[in-house]
């Protein structure tokens, strides 16, 4: 079955611009955000700290997830020891109180760290939308260079300001070395 041109346009994931250096990508990202685009994503072979502040205005929720995980770990560790030594199997050890919270602190602390670390790792994977077996950006052949030495910026078609020819022209004006349509 053949598709109408209208349908083809709807099935576009976005427009991708290619850059030679991290600085060019950062500059282009700044211009793109200043131009009013909101659904923008950047791809780089190396981590670029400031890029995150430019593109993602919203702070990640990861730190709250880690804090919650840590507190849950602390409660679990403390509760486990309290339950074992006060409720389930009370024993007199050297005349110390059964609820010897001083000694409970060390395992509680360890479980705090364990739960916080697991929350960070799992939270990061989930918030990143992983595992994701398919993503449209890989339909662009040049995109394989994103894992070696090229830098990419994508304006997605879900952006309210997105208009394929105009957006592509805009990206070219930011100094892109190449601009490609990304098929969905």
């Amino acid at each position: 079955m053949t598709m109408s041109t209208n349908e083809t346009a709807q099935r576009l994931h976005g427009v991708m611009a290619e850059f030679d250096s991290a600085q060019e990508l950062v500059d282009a990202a700044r211009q793109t955000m200043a131009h009013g685009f909101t659904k923008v994503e950047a791809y780089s072979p190396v981590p670029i700290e400031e890029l995150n502040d430019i593109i993602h205005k919203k702070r990640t929720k990861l730190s709250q997830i880690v804090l919650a995980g840590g507190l849950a770990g602390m409660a679990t560790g403390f509760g486990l020891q309290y339950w074992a030594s006060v409720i389930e199997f009370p024993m007199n050890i050297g005349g110390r109180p059964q609820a010897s919270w001083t000694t409970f602190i060390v395992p509680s602390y360890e479980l705090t760290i364990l739960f916080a670390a697991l929350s960070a790792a799992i939270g990061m994977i989930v918030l990143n939308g992983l595992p994701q077996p398919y993503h449209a950006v890989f339909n662009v052949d040049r995109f394989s260079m994103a894992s070696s030495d090229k830098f990419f910026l994508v304006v997605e078609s879900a952006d309210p300001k997105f208009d394929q020819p105009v957006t592509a022209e805009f990206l070219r004006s930011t100094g892109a070395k190449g601009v490609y349509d990304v098929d969905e």
Partner: protein
Amino acid sequence: MSTVTSETFAAGGSPLPGMKQFGLMAGVLGVVLIGAGFMTSSLDRFYQAYLVAYTFWMGVALGSLALLMVQHLTGGAWGVVLRRPLEAAVRTIPFMAVLFLPIVFGMHSLYEWTHESAASDPVLVLKAGYLNTPFFLVRQAIYFVLWSGMGYLLTSWSLEHDRTGDPALVDKMARLSGAGLVIYFLSVTFAMVDWTMSVNPHWFSTIWGMLYIGGQALSAFAFGITVLVMLSQTAPLNRVLSTHHFHDLGKFLFAFLMMWAYLSFSQFLIIWSANLPEEIPHYLVRWDNSWKYLSAFIVVGHFIVPYSLLLSRDLKKNSAKLRVVAIWIILARIADYYWHVAPEFHKDGFSFSVFDVALPLALGGIFISIFVSQLAGRSLLPVNDAGLEKALTHHVH
């Protein structure tokens, strides 16, 4: 960056004169309060307060020495911007050595093992081979020669490196730092056993040295951050210091705060669990009477409050707020040392004299004045350091 010279970051026009003035004012106020102290309090209390104040301010200098050596071994942008404040603190050590003399004069007030009655004490007789006045004085001389000598070499080579850029000097500083850290750990362990642990010669804790080493690093970071925030407000460092630097330094402050808590709690947990008659009095004296309010304050004010604040990334990146936390930690550090020393002399409960405020102020004033004059004499950044350019360009990694 090839045009950078030591003139680029000269201290002229920086807020150093204001800091010097602050130091002088604190010193003068401290001396006035010492006068008031002598009218209301005893010479014994003067020496007790002096030991606390001296241990803290000397700790800032020694912690700076340790951080300087760590930094020569590891590198890192944090160390490049912090190096000159650390070096200035290290260069106060020879002056601070002179200020140790009052402790020598006050040995009889401070150390029970110098009394004649120690000869008839069954425990102190056995410790007399180490805890005796001549050997104590010899040890102090050795510590100060080691600390001053290492500090002198490291800071002179660093200044020479500013002039010549000779890479052999970097190598020399790293080599000395490797051996120097071992010397630092051993000498500070012995020194703190001498200064503060032997205040109660019957008691012992094997973690005492580490507790002070971690505490000195914390004090040095708190002091260094306070200074750097002030320097970052005007030329020349306002062009250089950014939120990234303070974020890094804030993380270090956080880490060493946790290390202090870890070591302090370890000591408590081990002694509390064993509950042995020769160890537990240390905590009984600090909990079974009004000292418990200070003990509780140490837990809350020295750990829980700054820990919770430093969890925040926004706070660590905000230099003004970070400085408030750093100054708070400096005050809590002094309270912690007071808590180590004072209860041993006043076992019945909390007891306060004007000296306890006057001496931290007076010695702090002297320390800050020397520190500022040492800092003002040099470029505020090590201009030939291989890591300088990386430390100053944080835009793209």
